[in-house]
């Protein structure tokens, strides 16, 4: 088991945000802690996270 820090950029799609973030994080591991830490218009989300890999 390793804790892996992540910095992701995600283009926002229509619909709720949380499932979009979780889907993006799932590609890297099991999310342990995450947050959207910046939004660049029109819809690019910066996500910082730690995942279990």
């Amino acid at each position, binding site marked *: 088991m390793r804790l892996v820090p992540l910095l992701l950029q995600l283009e926002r799609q229509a619909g709720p945000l949380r499932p979009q973030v979780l889907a993006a994080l799932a590609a890297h591991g099991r999310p342990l802690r995450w947050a959207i*830490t910046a*939004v660049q218009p029109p819809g690019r989300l910066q996500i*910082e996270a730690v995942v279990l890999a």
Partner: protein
Amino acid sequence: MPTLLVVPTGIGCTIGGYAGDALPAARLLAAASGCLITHPNVMNGAALYWSDPRIHYVEGSSLDRFAAAEIGLRPVRRQRIGLLLDAGIEAELRARHLQVADGCRATLGLDIGPVEVTDAPLDVRLSLGASGVSWGELGRPEALLRAGRRLQAAGATAIAVVARFPDDPDSEALAAYRQGSGVDALAGAEAVISHLLSLELGLPCAHAPALSPLPLDPRLDPRAAGEELGYTFLACVLVGLSRAPDLIAGPSAADLSVGSVGAIVAPAAALGGAAVLACAERGIPVIAVDNPCLLAVSAAALELEVMPASSYSEAAGLLLALREGINPAALRRPLAALQVQAP
């Protein structure tokens, strides 16, 4: 009216970014709502704490899962708190923590024990993210989980974990934090530790860092003063966990569930966390409080509908209005006349 209060850890919030300095706001919101669910960053003032039966102490990742309807919360009269100590803590500092636990047993009547030491130092490292937010890493997560599982097997129903954090008494970041202008550099790693334990064991968990005492700083900000009163930050964790609700995977109708939550209160510039987004998805009112921090993740940026509040006092008024079934819009002027919708 069950209400969630979130002040994210390690983002430098003006209120809640220091040593439990959102606690007065939490007490006010608990009085206004009658039932407040919040997390250790709000409640932990190191040697200072407040116990209120209306406030439910729920570790951050468990609070996120509660908001996502993955678990419910079951209030209890007491928890049996297992104490998990990092093998990296020196003998004298370990003794200080054991004495705090003994003090909480003798003076407050808390049920504490068993005690376990990890089979290897946890190797905590501090880091900042791209946004300047506090994060952190744990070199030996398996050692943490092994000790946690031993405590669970020995009957602990909640876990207080103390990890040795790196001392850096001369750092500019620490000086800024103590003087009220910086980010709590420890907070991110603390969150990772308690999230991991709680997620894997399904128990209420919270963390206190073990650090060497700091020299006196005559310019100390009052918001950071709670951490300068003793040798450890453990007392608040033990008190918080002593009546933390059980985490229930299949809640019954008698348990607290997100379906009964009437509002969530969060900093207006930090709305991009799991709990706020989960509540927003469910149509739970989001009260966005002006509480400046490092981030600028606002309702406008995320296209969320929120109730803005200029202070926690105003947020308390909004909660009271919601609790009493008063439309908050009726409290503002001008009040636009109703219009008949076009067919």
